[in-house]
């Protein structure tokens, strides 16, 4: 269990020159976000986006499609079934792209750490540039995280997409381990009705068994 809370956000700086610095300055001021609202964290986004906390003053706004978005928000727990769709969405996004994990579920499973359909560590499947702890984080925490992410983009530290490209085989192997598993994890299940018998056949068999 000692490896369970390892947290892969610490990155080495990108080599900076004037042009990357300038590009990063503009990147950080115009982020379009795609929010993956299947988890409970989605409920914190309306106050963050609307007049009370007004995310747009940071230059951020919602975007409808992954191909035009820069920022992917994973708002809460991810089940195995949604993980597949998240990976599709993430791979469709154009670089540079950033991922923010909301709440404790993408970090270590949160309250679903022992649930069978929910993955525990998003970091193992896709690179996460910024995680917000809390269950759920309040809009202030979200704004704070976005500001930190903007700083990291300016400094060239938010390079999760490059990590994904370089270690694609590692991420793909982890994804395959969960999504395309070939064998049972604990006990293989053999369906006694795999041949799809009819009710009449089952009843005939039962009456035979009772005679024996």
């Amino acid at each position, binding site marked *: 269990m000692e490896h369970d809370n390892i947290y892969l956000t610490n990155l080495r700086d990108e080599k900076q020159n004037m042009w990357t610095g300038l590009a990063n300055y503009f990147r950080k001021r115009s982020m379009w976000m795609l929010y993956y609202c299947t988890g409970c964290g989605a409920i914190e986004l309306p106050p963050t986006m609307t007049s009370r906390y007004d995310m747009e003053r940071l230059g951020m706004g919602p975007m409808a499609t992954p191909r035009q978005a820069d920022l992917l928000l994973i708002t809460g727990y991810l089940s195995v079934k949604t993980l597949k769709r998240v990976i599709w969405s993430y791979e469709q996004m154009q670089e540079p792209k950033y991922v923010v994990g909301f709440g404790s579920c993408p970090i270590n499973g949160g309250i679903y750490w022992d649930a069978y359909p929910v993955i525990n*560590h998003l970091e193992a499947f896709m690179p996460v540039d910024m995680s917000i702890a809390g269950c759920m984080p309040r809009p202030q925490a979200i704004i704070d995280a976005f500001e930190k992410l903007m700083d990291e983009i300016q400094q060239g530290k938010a390079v999760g997409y490059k990590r994904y490209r370089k270690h694609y085989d590692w991420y793909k192997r982890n994804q395959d381990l969960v999504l395309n598993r070939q064998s049972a994890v*604990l006990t293989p299940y053999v369906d006694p009705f795999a041949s799809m018998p009819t009710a009449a056949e089952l009843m005939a068999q039962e009456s035979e068994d009772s005679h024996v």
Partner: protein
Amino acid sequence: MYDHIFKRAQSLHGDKITCEKKHPQQLEIKTDRHYVMNLLSWLKTESYVHLAFISCIDWIEENQFELVYHVYSYEEKNHILVKTRLDRDRPWMHSIIDVWGHAQPYEQEIHEMFGVYFPGNPDLSGLFLHNWKDLPPMRKDFNPKDYSLALYSLKGMGHEALDMDFIQEITELEVE
């Protein structure tokens, strides 16, 4: 409130069922699984037209599954629970989609989550689980914690990629 349905059930199906009032709004009827279809058809004619849902309970110590059909009457404004027990080693139950068509996804879900087989149901394919190869997960002998730790914890993901050297390499990634 239940008096007339209680009396009629006793007089019509007396030797096949046992009735008990669980609550002012709930009547429980226990019966054999081969008799459930008759009973539900009769209840449907007695204004219990709404099948709210079907639930399944795993009585592992008695080695049985229990199916509970919740039916509701808009005229009487009360519920009847029809309960029946199945053998846990070979759990199967007649499909009731001829009485209520919308029972199809309920039975499909019970098949996926408990492994109860419903002959007569045209589609018992997987509904929610992705690439599931283990025991049906709502059974009591399935341990979700062990499953989660074995599959989703970094240690349990279980290959050399997760040792410290790799973590070191990935955090010291040289870019461009």
